[in-house]
């Protein structure tokens, strides 16, 4: 078997006395899409945020292409410069888009290329334009985020991440803040990325996306990884009662 892009082993995280992640083991293979599903508060976002060390984990290890992130050795934090170097290779898309409101769409995408990748303004501008074309926003480059719809903003955020040429992309509920009619355009961009072979970890409530695009689905509840398997096995023939219960409420809520 190929070495995992993201290898999560025995990861634990506490918020004070609250045990947020319990001995999580999860391997994400290169070029594959992994969806993290589960009820809110189950720790899926926390786990995702540990992968680029936006959130510190307390024990265990998370390796990106073999290199442990956040710590040089268990319990010893790595220097900021080294951590930043690793984060460059991990793109992240947030629920609230988090575009910088004082910059145009193009500037939002170019900023990281200039500051982090050290590109010239001209080169970064060109790369940004390409990335925006790719997400279908070639005609909105000069717009500030306030002049874009939610779906467009999220596509700019995706362009901002892919322009950095990451090896892994993390999506933290990328469509949860969107009006229902805008969800599709964002999912389509994500599907296209998956088709190109991008390694993706997606926290989502979009079961359709998980069913059709994911290579594996991981179900979390109360900080525990309850099951990891193919979408068909998790979504259609789950053995664990907790997954069955979750899917039952999901279907009830979505039927009319």
């Amino acid at each position, binding site marked *: 078997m190929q070495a995992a892009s993201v290898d999560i082993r025995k990861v634990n995280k506490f918020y004070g006395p609250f045990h947020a992640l319990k001995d999580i083991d999860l391997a994400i293979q290169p070029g594959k899409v992994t969806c993290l599903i589960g009820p809110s508060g189950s720790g899926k976002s926390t786990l995702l945020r540990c992968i680029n060390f936006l959130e510190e984990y307390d024990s265990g290890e998370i390796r990106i292409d073999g290199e442990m992130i956040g710590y040089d050795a268990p319990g010893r934090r790595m220097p900021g410069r080294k951590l930043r170097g690793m984060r*460059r290779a991990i793109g992240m898309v947030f629920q609230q888009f988090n575009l910088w409101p*004082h910059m145009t769409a193009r500037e939002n995408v170019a900023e*990281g290329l200039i500051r982090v990748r050290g590109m010239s303004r001209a080169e970064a501008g060109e790369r940004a334009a390409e990335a925006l074309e790719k997400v279908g926003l070639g005609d909105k480059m000069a717009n500030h985020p306030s002049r874009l719809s939610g779906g467009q903003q999220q596509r700019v955020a995706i362009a901002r991440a892919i322009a950095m040429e990451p090896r892994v992309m993390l999506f933290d509920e990328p469509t949860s803040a969107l009006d229902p009619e805008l969800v599709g355009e964002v999912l389509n961009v994500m599907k296209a990325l998956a088709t190109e072979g991008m390694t993706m970890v997606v926290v989502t409530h979009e079961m359709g996306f998980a069913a059709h695009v994911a290579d594996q689905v991981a179900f979390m509840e109360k900080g525990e990884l309850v099951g990891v398997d193919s979408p068909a096995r998790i979504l259609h023939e789950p053995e664990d009662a907790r997954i069955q219960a979750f899917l039952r409420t999901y279907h009830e809520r979505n039927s009319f």
Partner: protein
Amino acid sequence: MFSIPVFLDSFYPLFLAARYTLLISVLGIALGLVIGTLICAARLSPYGPLRRFAAVWVSFLRGVPLLVQLLVFFYTLPVIGIDVPAIVAAVVTVGICASAYISEIWRGAIAALPRGQTEAAIAIGMGPRDVWTRVILPQAFTMSLPALINELILLVKASSLVSVVGIMEVTRASQAQAATTFRPLEVYIAAACIYLLINLCLAALGRYLEHRTAV
């Protein structure tokens, strides 16, 4: 009776004095911005003693009236052997006093920034310097513009207090004028008009800047 000619005549010397009022306010806010930014940085630093120093700085300077600060500063300098012109002492005092308010204005604006703004920058691999100069400060500045203009207007009015250390700014000049002409009413109304004119201009400048930086 109110004499229009006396009223109009008193404008010329007051306009000359307004240069000092403007000088003190503008240099005061400039100095206040520099010191206030440093104090705010100290206030937000991970280093405890720095944070405490900044907290004491702010509460002391906000807690003592500017007039008293001016007098203390003005009479302390010669005692410790520093001989500077009154105008310098005035600008420094006004600037230091403004720094306390400005650092709080900054702190409020920075705290109001959604956490996701910095997270997006960190996730992309930006270092602390870029996060501050490219993401946090530009937005904090835009958000605090109304409060900063407000502070500048307060300073213009507070600059009248430096008349007590003998600087011929608008208030002191009008006192002198009133004493020689025996027409305090005309002179002081003229002084009021000049302050009002300056501050209306500043408010217009503020609206212009807010409009320009609006996104």
